[in-house]
């Protein structure tokens, strides 16, 4: 009988041992309880690993992973092109523009300022891996206090857990009329929503919900007093409306 090596035992466990070597390994195992035990434990390990991670195969693939990006712009380049040049949110924005371009003429899809700015902010920050927010949800109180102070109002941060979205955190942005508070939420599949809160110019007024579709990003926006609100996400009109409704009610109890 050939000497059985560690590699033979591994290959035995992984089903990669040539048939010709099977008998040798099996008689070795029969004679060596210690190795038999190791082989048993490794097998169990394989099966626990598979049963732990196989369920991922049945999950629905998040929208952001599907489709081919039209034009390869790195995320940072994407951010630069959107913010720096103020380019139309459209055909040149990589992931953002992928998939069904939906045939909406770009000029016609230009929504009023806030919806557009919110959609751009969403497109820039929601794919962000390392720094999606400046202040994380673990410091929610500080976050809300800080942004309230900068906007000069008492902001409230909606709780969307009942809808499956948890707060990721927020950041301060600069908008055309000054500071903007930007909150980010995320569901368990990694789908992100952002809430954009900005100071509005002119007299205080109120509007109903408006909807805008900026390419893949759906936006519900409304003005309440001196503040404009826009909720953005890459989800359907109806799904976003449900969230917007909850946000609105929580901000106006």
């Amino acid at each position, binding site marked *: 009988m050939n000497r059985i090596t560690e590699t033979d035992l*591994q290959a035995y466990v992984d089903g990669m041992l040539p048939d010709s070597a099977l008998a040798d390994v099996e008689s070795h195992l029969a004679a060596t309880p210690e190795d038999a035990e190791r082989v048993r434990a490794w097998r169990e390990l394989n099966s626990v690993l598979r049963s732990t*991670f196989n369920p991922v195969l049945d999950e629905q693939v998040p929208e*952001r992973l599907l489709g081919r990006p039209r034009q390869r712009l790195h995320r940072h380049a994407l951010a630069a092109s959107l913010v720096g040049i103020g380019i139309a949110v459209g055909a040149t924005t990589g992931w953002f523009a992928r998939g069904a371009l939906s045939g909406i003429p770009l000029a016609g899809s230009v929504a009023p300022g806030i919806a557009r700015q919110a959609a751009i902010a969403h497109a820039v920050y929601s794919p962000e891996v390392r720094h999606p927010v400046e202040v994380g949800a673990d410091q929610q109180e500080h976050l809300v206090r800080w942004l309230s102070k900068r906007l000069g109002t008492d902001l409230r941060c909606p709780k969307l857990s009942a809808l499956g979205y948890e707060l990721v955190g927020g950041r301060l942005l600069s908008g055309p009329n000054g500071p903007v508070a930007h909150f980010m939420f995320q569901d368990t599949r990694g789908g992100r929503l952002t809430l954009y809160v900005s100071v509005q110019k002119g007299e205080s007024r109120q509007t109903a919900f408006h909807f805008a579709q900026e390419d893949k990003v759906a936006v519900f926006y409304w003005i309440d007093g001196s503040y404009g609100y826009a909720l953005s996400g890459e989800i359907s009109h109806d799904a976003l409306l449900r969230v917007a409704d909850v946000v609105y009610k929580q901000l106006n109890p």
Partner: protein
Amino acid sequence: MDNHPIEQHIPRLRRYARALVRDRYAADDLVQDTLERAWNKLHLWRQGSDMRAWLFTIMHNVFVNQARSRRQEVERSMEEMPVVAVRGHQGQELELLDMDRALQMLPPDHREVLLLVAVEELSYEETSQALGVPIGTVMSRLSRARERLRMLTSPQGMTSLKVVK
């Protein structure tokens, strides 16, 4: 609509990424970065060769680049090991929750080998190609990863771990 071959591999890339980095969102970020690169480099993929192995190679490269900047975190998590030891105490069987956590205690390059072989069922040869290391290295990492996990997830292992410490 016909799915592009790249898209057909997404569920498996997600499974591997989830096991590799544990956090669901970070895992999908890893997949997204991998796909982005794959689409970019599609012209470099040789028709007829195994696309899945090619995608795993790309993911490995992306992961290594990210892991480099995360090294400190990994070292910190190694220091927290006794916490896991306590959790692993009950029961003879491996526990699912503990597995997820114990995996993160492995050095990332050992974890990669183990997952490619045990979960993704790549051959040793394919694993060696995907990770760009010789087969001998694959085998030794595999062996060490398994022994380490066995220690981390079994009551007997806990005892010997304490002795080692």
